[in-house]
């Protein structure tokens, strides 16, 4: 039994290295420009686009896009490698029977095991896939009720400002780079983007 355990343990550092590649690397929170920093942009459309481009630093951050994959598997880490161990989307975005999100992910981050957690942990539906898309394409997608879960722009703002799974992106636990700024700052940008017409970047 002891030998078996040592064999089993011997394969795990390699797995762990893949999982925690960024552990010890930069995990400082990058800054986000405040909504008021865009007041000098007089043209409203240009201001709307500029604000969304700033918010895009969050939207396209690994903490966000890793669970908006274009395929059937979530991604991990800052390099966006496929989730280890293998998990799939499943019928409800919560994994396959036997290998659900909740098989590993609890209500809060479990720091000793480097496993992130949130009560709502799940994969975004495939129509909300962001990986591989330009920021402009993601912007149009976010506005489209057919691809945003039937949300109005007001509901999009509420989601970005108040959803605690979105908020996890700024509290990802040790070894994961947090999303830039704060959820409050990000929320202010999204609010301003909507107030200025919710215009999208062309690229």
């Amino acid at each position, binding site marked *: *039994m002891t030998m*078996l*355990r040592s*064999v*089993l*343990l011997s*394969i*795990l550092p390699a*797995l*762990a290295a893949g*999982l925690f590649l960024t552990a010890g690397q930069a995990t400082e929170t990058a800054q986000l420009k405040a909504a008021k920093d865009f007041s000098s942009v007089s043209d409203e459309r240009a201001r709307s686009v500029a604000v969304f481009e700033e918010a895009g630093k969050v939207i396209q951050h690994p903490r966000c896009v890793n669970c908006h994959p274009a395929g059937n598997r979530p991604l991990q880490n800052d390099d966006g490698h496929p989730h*280890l*161990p*293998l*998990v*799939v989307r*499943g019928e409800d975005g919560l994994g*396959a*029977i*036997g*290998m*659900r999100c*909740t*098989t*590993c992910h*609890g*209500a*809060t981050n*479990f720091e*000793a*095991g*480097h*496993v992130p957690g949130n009560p709502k942990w799940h994969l975004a539906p495939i129509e909300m896939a962001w990986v591989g898309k330009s920021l402009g394409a993601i912007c149009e997608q976010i506005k489209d009720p057919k691809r945003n879960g039937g949300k109005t722009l007001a509901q999009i703002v509420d989601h970005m400002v108040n959803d605690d799974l979105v908020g996890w992106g700024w509290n990802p636990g040790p070894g994961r780079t947090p999303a830039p700024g704060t959820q409050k700052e990000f929320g202010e940008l999204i609010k301003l983007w909507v107030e200025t017409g919710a215009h999208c970047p062309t690229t």
Partner: protein
Amino acid sequence: MIDLNVNGKKVSVSVADDMPVLWVIRDVLGMTGTKFGCGIGQCGACTIHVDGEPRRSCITKTSELADREITTIEAIGDTPSGKAVQDAWLRLEVVQCGYCQSGQIMTAAAIIDAIPEPTDVDIDQGMSGNICRCGTYVRIREAIKEAAKAVAAK
């Protein structure tokens, strides 16, 4: 104190809230059938059931399971699916060294509970987090199918 329901029995344990429940099961309650493998949720050896669904006990805070229904390998044989899985495991001689098998059996029983006729895809996806260093995967798959048939026949 944290109140737990383990294999149908209520117990109260005085441990830190964030102690992995695997530690409680093995070291506090003395039930050593659930195994420690990796400690990071990568191998599945520590799988238990929480309210009937598989959970990696090595990365689960004990406080999260207060008053939830915990089942370990020691009691899974009391359920129809667990008994069928254990019987099929013996008939097909699935086990080689055995270290991972309590975790394999826990996940297999949960799959059969939810999917009466699991396909190869159902099994491969549902069992993907239970690693077997001996490579008994082909026998595991056949035993799950056999156990599912046995449960369906009753």
